[in-house]
């Protein structure tokens, strides 16, 4: 029962997304209702992200949109991982919006992309999260199972 629910909702979203997307967001592939790829770029002239395009991977569970999707940046030759104090160098994003507490079923792929865009736009720190190297080396958990502590309300 829940799988069709997610599929129907994603179908609606896909319909809307393929018609129009906000500037700086592009749909790369959405061949099924499990994994979508999108490209985002920062619109203003932030020197940290100028002329860069980043690849996002959305993975939807059968309980979407009740549960949040898993959203990570993907590293490709022409798609780096953006530098940000809340983005680990393996692409995992620490954003309350994507956690179980911060997620709301009224969010959608488009609004998540826009939130990430604004998260990058507002950043001026050229740094990775504290403990990035250890985390990247040691983490074997899926992003959804990581318990982040959202301490920073500025970014």
């Amino acid at each position, binding site marked *: *029962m829940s799988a*069709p*629910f997610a599929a*129907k*909702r994603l179908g*609606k*979203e896909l319909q*809307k997304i393929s018609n129009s997307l906000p500037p700086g967001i592009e749909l790369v592939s959405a061949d099924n209702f499990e994994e979508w790829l999108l490209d985002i770029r920062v619109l203003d002239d932030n020197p940290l992200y100028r002329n860069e395009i980043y690849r996002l991977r959305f993975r939807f569970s059968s309980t979407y*949109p*009740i*549960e949040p999707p898993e959203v990570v940046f993907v590293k490709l030759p022409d798609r780096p991982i953006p530098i940000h104090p809340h983005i680990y160098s393996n692409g995992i994003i620490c*954003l*309350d*919006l994507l956690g*179980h*507490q*911060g997620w*709301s*079923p*009224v*969010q*959608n792929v488009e*609004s998540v992309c*826009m*939130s990430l865009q*604004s*998260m990058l*736009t*507002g950043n001026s720190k050229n740094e990775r999260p504290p403990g990035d190297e250890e985390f990247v080396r040691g983490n074997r958990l899926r992003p959804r199972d990581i318990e982040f502590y959202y301490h920073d*309300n*500025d*970014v």
Partner: protein
Amino acid sequence: MPPPNTPVDGTTTPQSTQPSQPAQSSQSSQSVSRPTSSIIMDASQVKTALVKMDYQAIDYVNPVDETLICPICRTAFHSPITTPCGHTFCAKCINRALERQRVCPIDRQPIDKTRDYRPIPLIIKEQLDRLEARCPNQGCDYVCARENLEAHYERHCEFTLVHCSKPSCDKLVARHLCSIEGQCMHEMTNCDFCLKPVAFVDLDAHWEQECEAAFATCPDCDASVSVVNNSMLKHIQQECPEAMAKCKWDGAGCRVTDKRRIVREHERNGCMYETVGRLLEQQAEDRRIIQDLTRRLASLEAVRDTRRRERRRDSAATINDRTATATAAGGSLTNPTTSTSTPADSTTWESPHNYMLAQFERLESHMEELREMVCEMDMRQSASFLHHSKQVADRFLELGDKVGVLSMHTKWLLNMQYMQRNAQLRAANAASLAAAAAGAGGAGLSGGSDGLNHGGESSSGAGSSSDSGLRYQGSRRGSEGRIENLTRL
């Protein structure tokens, strides 16, 4: 920059003693339900749908307004509810969301779902009911208002899944496939062509997609053609380029009969009978038009005749009717439908034309009445205007008179003042002359008293003239007399 929808400080998870599974969601999530016995006992023996209609799968004819779309499922609301914070969701959607987190998905206000839901305004419900929706069943393109769609889906749609006709079979089948009572569409049969076992339900799909034996080679053109449902015959009669065919202008006298592709070539190059053929077609068309026109003329004549008869028969009644409506002028004019509908009900009309003609006549007579009324009102209006303006003119004349009188009075008063001053001067001169000429004497005293008397008389005359106005005739005479007196002095 904080991302949107960061949790608001101070929101707490509500404490609820109610079980987490709400009655509503358990009901709606029960997607497959046996039809109730009362429906099965229905006289029409209509098989009801076994799977509830899925409102999220409905396709709407026109784009649905964003305000009527549930933010969770992104489809038009289905049995929506409103949270205490004023946000609206499908009941099913909000219940699913609240199972995980007991806050409003939009503003994260705590919600106690067992108590806090409010019903939505009826106007929203009506808007939702009126959305033009397409039946969610594959293959069905029925469109109606959304409120009626469920009835269509459950009772009428040929593509709705129902129980198989055979009581022992527990599978579902589209309604149009279970027409034969007791015949299970899931029983295996052998394909007529390949002899493989196939369920009845899947036979069509099997023939169209799998069965190789269902396709045969056309004896003439070597094409692979399905043999199901006479499609081979159709192919030979209409399509096959190698089959024998006649020229298109066969009816016009062309005798060419050859393989279809050669005949087609012949037609393209210009069959010599083509002109004749086209002429014949044109003639047939003309004949058809003439027949049509004759038919219409006949029907119109019939209508005219009946109308004429009817008018003769009804003339007396119509006159009565007219007088009746004329007497009840005001009421019948403000509401002509009531006055016209009564005779229409009492008479049976032979055709809509007659009815319309009668209505037209009635309306015309009403127009005539209205015109008369307007004329009469116009006359009355102008008469009353004349009357009023005459009164005003009279008043003007009267006022002019009064102004004349007043000016006369003023003249008189000024005159009198002038006289008085003259008299005083004369008296003073006389007194000084007397005093200078002789000593004290009787003549001098009597002259003084005479002067005083005059003064008294003139002051009383002025008083009476000032309040005259109405009694001006009398006072005028008095004042005239007084002027004479003064001049004599």
